[in-house]
């Protein structure tokens, strides 16, 4: 329990407050600390129960690190991550000891990008799905566990008989289904999905996306959906947060963000997405100059200013904060807000 949970909304499941995740860099003869990568540099957002928050951005923007931070697969340097447990308690995941974190992990599970490397090749699929059960419910009888595994396999569109098979006998899409079954084994409230469909073939992606939506409806799951494919994220998410170099630059309802993006980076990102329709008259593409700067040498002030078509000298001075432009829609760019 935390003391300052007073302002933690009843309709909030996860409240990430000003989280920073910095990795030290060691170098020199004595491997002294010579710098740090600010992978996540002051990120705040909330997720409501039953909703999908999409987290998008280009490689190196910190979206995966942020996701891992939520279940403490990486150490959080600063900030708070408040989570409402099944029993109603609100815990700050950042301060939790290993032992105390363990039961929380049953309630927050993760699905990984690569279905080829995230399943142990020497274990049968049944063992893989049963492992979280044996960790979190050690008293469960063997027969009951087998029953659970068969039930989970059927929930994700496989069959109970396939429990004895090994990962190499499954296709990429089926393996991702196994990964989803494993994540659901402990009946989590929240699932962090890190690029769950980007390694899959086009015709299989839609199957997995539909499955995730069905399961969300059936079990009331909450998703943090991390991906770089904006079309998929727009399809599955209720709200979307756009990250750039460790910060959220814009957050809002998926449809609004797609139709009326405000931040220059969101606009550029969306205009770069190719559309599967050659007859479409598309608006002038905003091709950004240059590339994302290294997070080791993050620009001062607004991190996007080195590529931004609207940048002004004042952008170098201060890191812009998220400001509301409409209901539920926030943007971190004082220039756009001033110009209207």
């Amino acid at each position, binding site marked *: 329990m935390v003391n300052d949970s007073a302002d933690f909304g009843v309709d909030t499941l996860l409240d990430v407050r000003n989280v920073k995740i910095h990795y030290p860099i060691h170098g020199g003869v004595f491997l002294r600390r010579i710098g740090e990568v600010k992978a996540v540099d002051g990120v705040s957002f909330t997720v409501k129960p039953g909703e999908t928050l999409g987290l998008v951005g280009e490689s190196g923007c910190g979206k995966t690190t942020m996701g891992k931070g939520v279940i403490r697969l990486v150490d959080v340097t600063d900030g708070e991550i408040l989570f409402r447990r099944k029993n109603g308690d609100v815990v700050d995941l950042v301060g939790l000891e290993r032992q105390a974190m363990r039961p929380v992990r049953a309630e927050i599970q993760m699905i990984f990008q690569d279905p080829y490397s995230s399943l142990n090749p020497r274990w049968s699929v049944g063992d893989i799905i049963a492992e979280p059960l044996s960790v979190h419910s050690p008293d469960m009888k063997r027969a009951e566990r087998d029953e659970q595994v068969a039930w989970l396999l059927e929930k994700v569109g496989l069959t109970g008989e396939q429990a004895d098979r090994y990962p190499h006998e499954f*296709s990429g899409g089926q393996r991702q289904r196994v990964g989803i079954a494993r994540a659901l084994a402990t009946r989590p409230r929240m699932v962090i999905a890190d690029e769950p469909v980007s390694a899959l073939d086009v015709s299989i992606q839609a199957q997995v996306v539909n499955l995730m939506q069905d399961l969300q409806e059936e079990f009331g799951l909450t998703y943090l959906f991390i991906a770089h494919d904006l079309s998929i994220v727009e399809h599955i998410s209720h709200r979307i947060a756009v990250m750039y170099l460790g910060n959220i630059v814009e957050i809002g309802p998926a449809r609004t963000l797609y139709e009326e993006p405000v931040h220059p980076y969101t606009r550029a990102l969306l205009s770069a997405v*190719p559309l599967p329709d050659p007859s479409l008259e598309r608006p002038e593409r905003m091709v950004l100059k240059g590339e994302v700067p290294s997070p080791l040498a993050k620009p001062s002030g607004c991190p996007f200013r080195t590529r931004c078509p609207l940048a002004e000298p004042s952008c170098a001075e201060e890191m812009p904060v998220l400001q509301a432009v409409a209901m539920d829609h926030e943007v971190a760019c004082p220039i756009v807000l001033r110009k209207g």
Partner: protein
Amino acid sequence: MSRDDRQKLLELRDLRTYFDVEGRTAKAVDGVSFDIYTNEVFGLVGESGSGKSVTSLSIMRLIPNPPGRIESGEIRFRGQNLLDLSFAEMRKIRGNDISMIFQEPMTALNPVFTIGYQLREGIRYHSKCSKAEAEDRATEMLDLVGIPDPRRRLKDYPHQFSGGMRQRAMIAMALSMEPGLLIADEPTTALDVTIQAQILELMLKVREKTGDASILLITHDLAVVAETCDRVAVMYGGKIQEISEVKALFKTPLHPYTQGLLSSLPRPDKQKKTRLDTIPGIVPSIMSMPPGCKFAARCPIAEPRCERDEPELREITPGRFCRCHLVDGKGGGRAW
């Protein structure tokens, strides 16, 4: 200009490339035919295992043997069958006339030589010019692909370049000999969308500058095809299933597989569907292809004959080819 007035640059005729795996034969490419005209961007689209990359490696004659071999067929480039050439003759074609860029520019560049060395090496191998001339040409190429301060960056090693810059350097290398055909195998798959937009724009810009060069773009991403290609071939199970002008393909896809692919894509520009359409089942393994239509097992409108008889690739309307018993150009074969 109608299609027939244009010159054919590359003609593939019934190409078959097989691999011997554990005593069995995997027919990775099984009777592929298509033409690429001069100054066109031709897309070859398919999912993993469809045979699209093996097709491109066959054109370059880069199939590792064993286990792979080009079983039969013709690959005519400017009228000459590449399969008749000796290795030495083929080496002259590669780089000079046909060059290739790959998906992962880090593995395609040698990490222990500078970018400049690798660019100059190719230029000098193929054109026998002096070192200074090669240096100038290399600088010019890096400048063309939009790398700032090119003369200084020639001294950099590949790891000092970012992913997008490495792909630019690869394109510079591939274009330094002004090839007639550039084969780009998933050139932007490893890149972020904003960098992908830069690279695709660059490839099209370079085509304009080089005059009559053609591009064979291999990709799994239909949206990339929509934005860059003039014509496209859809591959599935080692065979071409459909060939069409790009606009016509996206407007009225003929083959049930193409229809399914297009309708399974989320379309943020359109009214939101609550559920995506899906193609049921999985891609068949090339080790055990069904005898009839390769897509029959997943096709919602398949008939008994589809599982039995392999359909021919037929010209349905002028310039549009489709491999399906049920498609007749009058609305037959609507699956999705």
